[in-house]
């Protein structure tokens, strides 16, 4: 049976040396000037973060007395972290937990709602579907902050102001997420698969949760991650909705500390500044880690949204 030798072993060396077609395009031509230029750009983006990292090892006094982009003689990162966590009876821990709660619940809810809606619009025809979808699509352009004040006024009537719901509910509706999921579902869930499942007698809900949701994975993670970031970073909405510091998310909390540090000057709250800086550093760690770990998903999901219009 020598005739069935796999073609790869008999192929000429030139082709065997080439990796996947995607990569052959650029082979090993690398440009040093371009790399240096891009590293310079990278420096600009990382500089503030380096400053933050260095600054959070300093006491408020050292912030003023030592050069910003280098360490002082007495680095005290751990002291700063400990003080950040214990200031005002550990209110910073509350802020972190609140932020995590608001962001995770909003992101899960928004992703699931967008997935079900996008799947419904992509795979079913029903009366008014076009109108409803276009209405949602038009809403992509309505700025969320223009809605925030009227939403606050409505929530004030409903008694929802100053509760976690005031932050979570508005974050659940993500028109762009729905749009993205519709595009994604149209491609990622083959009609033939749905038909086969129906012939096997599976119900629509079962098909969605057992089959479609799995195929929608990368799109789902994209919406999840971007809602997570949007809620995690949200400032305007919690600023107007909440006035109990124990309900604050990290953004509003840090801003209130920063205002204290500013007003206190060198007086009673002079060590606030170090806490603002250290708190800022602590607040960005979780998201950066989440993005680095999930990058495979959000990049492919974004591609779908950016390519098709």
């Amino acid at each position, binding site marked *: 049976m020598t005739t069935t030798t796999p073609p790869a072993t008999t192929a000429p060396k030139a082709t065997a040396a080439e990796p996947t077609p995607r990569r052959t395009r650029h082979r090993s031509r690398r440009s040093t000037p*371009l790399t240096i230029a891009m590293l310079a750009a990278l420096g600009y983006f990382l500089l503030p973060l380096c*400053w933050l990292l260095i600054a959070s090892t300093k006491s408020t006094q050292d912030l003023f007395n030592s050069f910003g982009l280098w360490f002082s003689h007495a680095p005290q990162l751990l002291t700063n972290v400990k003080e950040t966590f214990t200031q005002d009876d550990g209110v910073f821990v509350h802020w972190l937990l609140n932020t995590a709660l608001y962001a995770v619940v909003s992101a899960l809810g928004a992703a699931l709602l967008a997935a*079900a809606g996008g799947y*419904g619009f992509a795979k079913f025809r029903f009366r008014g579907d076009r109108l409803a979808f276009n209405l949602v699509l*038009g809403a992509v352009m309505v700025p969320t902050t223009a*809605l925030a004040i009227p939403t606050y006024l409505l929530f004030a009537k409903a008694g929802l102001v100053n509760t976690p719901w005031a932050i979570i509910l508005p974050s659940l509706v993500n028109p762009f997420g729905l749009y993205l999921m519709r595009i994604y579902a149209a491609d990622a869930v083959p009609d033939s698969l749905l038909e086969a499942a129906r012939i096997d007698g599976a119900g629509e809900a079962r098909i969605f949760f057992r089959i479609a949701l799995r195929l929608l994975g990368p799109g789902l993670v994209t919406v999840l991650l971007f809602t997570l970031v949007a809620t995690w970073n949200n400032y305007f909405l919690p600023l107007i909705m909440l006035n109990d510091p124990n309900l604050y998310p990290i953004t509003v909390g840090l*801003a209130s500390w920063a205002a204290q540090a500013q007003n206190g000057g060198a007086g009673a709250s002079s060590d606030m500044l170090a806490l603002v800086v250290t708190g800022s550093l602590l607040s960005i760690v979780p998201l950066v880690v989440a993005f680095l770990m999930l990058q495979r998903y959000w990049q492919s999901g974004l*591609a779908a949204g950016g390519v098709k219009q």
Partner: protein
Amino acid sequence: MSAVRRRRMAGPLFVAPFLTLFLLLFLAPLGYAAYLSLFQNRLIGGNVFVGLDNYTQALGDPQLLHGVGRVALFFVIQVPLMLLLALLFALALDSGLLRLARLIRLGIFVPYAVPSVVAALMWGYLYGPDFGPFAQLSHDLGLPAPDFLSDGWMLGSLANIVTWEFVGYNMIILYAALRTIPQELYEAAAMDGAGAWRIAWSVKLPALKPALLLTLLFSVIGSFQLFNEPNLLMKIAPDVISSSYTANLYAYSLAFTGQQVNYAATVSFLLGLVIVFASYAVLLTANRRRTP
């Protein structure tokens, strides 16, 4: 219930949860703002219907007009700069000519994961005259410190913060779109003798159009509702950033400092309209160019 009937019910049932919340949390506030904007709360007579009086007032309100003008200026300067940088970075990453491409890509994107509050605080301290490294360096060199927080510099300083935050995000959208261009297109172009620049211009740019449009649209929406950054820098430069520095800041202070709820709703509603119109203008211009 028959299978066909069940199937017919399924579509509406899948979209119902989203649409219900959309109705309650999107359309209802919008409608409520429109409703509120037709009333005024007067000392005598209480809540009275005033028709379009609030709108007449708003359209002649110099504070609002300045705020909108300022964000429009911000948009015209900052957005092209940001998108150009994002485009150049995406093309550089996609060219395959870079060493350390992965590190560079992630490093430029990282600021997106930083809350705008933290970004504004951080840059505010960096700009600052007391312990900002720029001021420290100029002090050591015996030069006058650049006053990033002065009236003349402020809009540029804000633009820098927003650019820093969002270049990476836009770059990733563009880069993701570039990765989906089929390999055959490049091969065909190379066969026709096109060089790297020619390919970037004639193959990559046209293919990027939808993605560019998307980033542009997000930027319109983002810049016109500028709030977080000026709101935070306001605390360290209260003389430069007034409570009506941007339109959104104005709406906020009307509602929560001035207690002028009806007028705040009017301003919010108008601002929303401005943004929707600007977005449609962008879309229409782009589409007209696409189909000559």
